């Protein structure tokens, strides 16, 4: 049996994000391993240029749903469009970039198609002819291997960075228009607007050094020890989500999928366990130092240097060692 694999791209104002190209690459890789064909799907309004861009990949075809009603994302219209397209073409696997938009509509799509849903996969392997997906569980401390059971399509969202857009195979693919009854698809929410979240004052993306603090700090009153280390390194202070949610630092210091993405020369993560939502925002840093009392914390898997210990002791010691080194 030849498998049909679809990758659904996400775009905003015709601009396709990197994570979508990663999903296309994953489709190509899965098609190669399973012996099938990879195709792509694009939804939006005024998609001609974007469609042509996707058409420059090695794909069986690019299906484009181009309609004014798809100009702004709503789960109702996006899920109903894909439901109709998938029900007609019957792909075996449909891959999505694991974005907040995907998570918003994908479970409902799986439900209406009676399809298997594998959220946030980071890799796959073929075992005895079936596809086994790996996905992080327990805050990224462990990886679960899961497999779809029963008939029907398998819908998978792929975590950022799981596949490399650089490995995308170029080629030429025919563009096919998805003719659907868009007027019959009702949005299930009325979009009032898209606005910038408050507090985007600090641009951490340009900082050469970032000292980031996580839940392990335990208390807002201990933040100054982190600031002292940041000052000693000539860097900026960053934080993982729990620190921001607790109100210990303002939101513009947040690094990760719902905050800023940074790639400094040096990234120090103290008291940060390393949930995937944080890792996607900092794993491109040149040198990563992790300080955590839990030797099993996933942050140590991406770090270059690690110290297993209490940050309340280690961080001031590093600050002191830096001062000592600069004086000698």
């Amino acid at each position: 049996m030849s498998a049909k694999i679809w990758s659904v791209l996400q775009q905003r104002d015709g601009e396709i994000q990197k994570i979508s190209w990663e999903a296309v690459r994953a489709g190509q890789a899965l098609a190669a391993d399973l012996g099938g064909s990879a195709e792509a799907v694009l939804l939006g309004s005024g998609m001609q240029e974007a469609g042509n861009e996707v058409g420059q990949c090695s794909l069986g075809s690019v299906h484009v749903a181009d309609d004014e009603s798809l100009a702004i994302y709503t789960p109702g219209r996006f899920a109903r469009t894909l439901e109709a397209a998938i029900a007609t073409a019957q792909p075996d696997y449909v891959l999505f970039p694991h974005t907040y938009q995907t998570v918003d509509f994908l479970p409902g799509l799986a439900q209406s198609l009676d399809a298997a849903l594998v959220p946030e996969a980071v890799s796959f392997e073929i075992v005895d002819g079936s596809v086994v997906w790996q996905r992080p569980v327990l805050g990224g401390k462990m990886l679960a291997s899961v497999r779809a059971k029963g008939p029907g399509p398998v819908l998978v969202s792929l975590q950022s960075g799981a596949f490399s857009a650089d490995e995308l195979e170029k080629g030429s693919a025919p563009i096919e228009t998805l003719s659907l009854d868009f007027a019959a698809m009702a949005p299930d929410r009325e979009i009032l607007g898209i606005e910038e979240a408050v507090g985007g004052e600090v641009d951490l993306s340009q900082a050469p050094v970032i000292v980031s603090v996580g839940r392990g700090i335990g208390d807002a009153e201990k933040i100054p020890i982190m600031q002292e280390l940041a000052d000693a390194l000539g860097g900026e202070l960053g934080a993982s989500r729990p620190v921001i949610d607790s109100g210990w630092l303002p939101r513009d210091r947040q690094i990760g999928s719902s905050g800023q993405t940074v790639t400094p020369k040096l990234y120090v993560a103290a008291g940060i366990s390393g949930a995937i939502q944080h890792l996607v925002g900092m794993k491109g840093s040149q040198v990563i130092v992790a300080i955590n009392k839990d030797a099993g914390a996933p942050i140590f898997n991406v770090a270059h240097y690690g110290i297993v210990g209490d940050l309340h002791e280690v961080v001031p010691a590093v600050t002191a060692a830096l001062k000592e080194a600069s004086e000698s």
Partner: protein
Amino acid sequence: MRIAVCIKQVPDIEARLRVSGDGTWIDEEDLSFVINESDGYALEEALQIAERTSGEVVVFSLGPERVREALRKALALGAARAVHLKDPAFLGGDSLSTGRALAGAIAAGDFDLVLTGSQSDDVGFGSTGTVIAGELGWPHVWLVMGVELDEANKKVKVTREMEAGMNEISNLDLPAVLEIQAGLNKPRYASLRGIMQAKKKEISEPGPGDLGLAPESLGETGAKIEVLSVAFPEAGKGAQIIEGDAETAARTLVEKLQKEARIL
């Protein structure tokens, strides 16, 4: 407002984890369990709305006997009563079969709003609330950062977190399902009085038959995916661990950053 809140009890993942005997999950013995973080924020939001609107909060949870403790805690915080889906037919499911069971239990009541967390800290599908919405045929929003109720017009204005520091603002018709992002509010602590009162509050335990649900559509049998194994990520490519007491390790680190990584 009558509000249903779905909570999940999850293991405290700060603890040292061991793979279970059958290799498909962690050994739960000796672990402590807590209410899933974002579910705690959902419960707090529901309690605040109920207080403002002279409403009522009913808390739902699916899981084994230990889950009763999480429900007791929610009752101590102010929920009026609880529903515990503990029948073995409910257990071991994916988000599709779990959401189906919870929606069945919620449908048996008369609710204006369902609140739940956006994602569990253990399995992390981030899907169950959306599935509940689909089963009920209600609109939903995932990753909610703001809730403004318009009781008179039976609408709710919702702020959804998007990537890259943007928010989507939308209006939904009630009844609706909102999946709350952590950080929305300041969850309260239980008072002594609340803890005492909770002991007298009802925890009902309906089975699939009571909810009119076919057992084969639920739990592990009704799931569309199966977990084959869990494992720790491969070690080896990780960090170079610097040994010694805090001072020694700090000095070694600074030296390595200067001479090995050459970035200082």
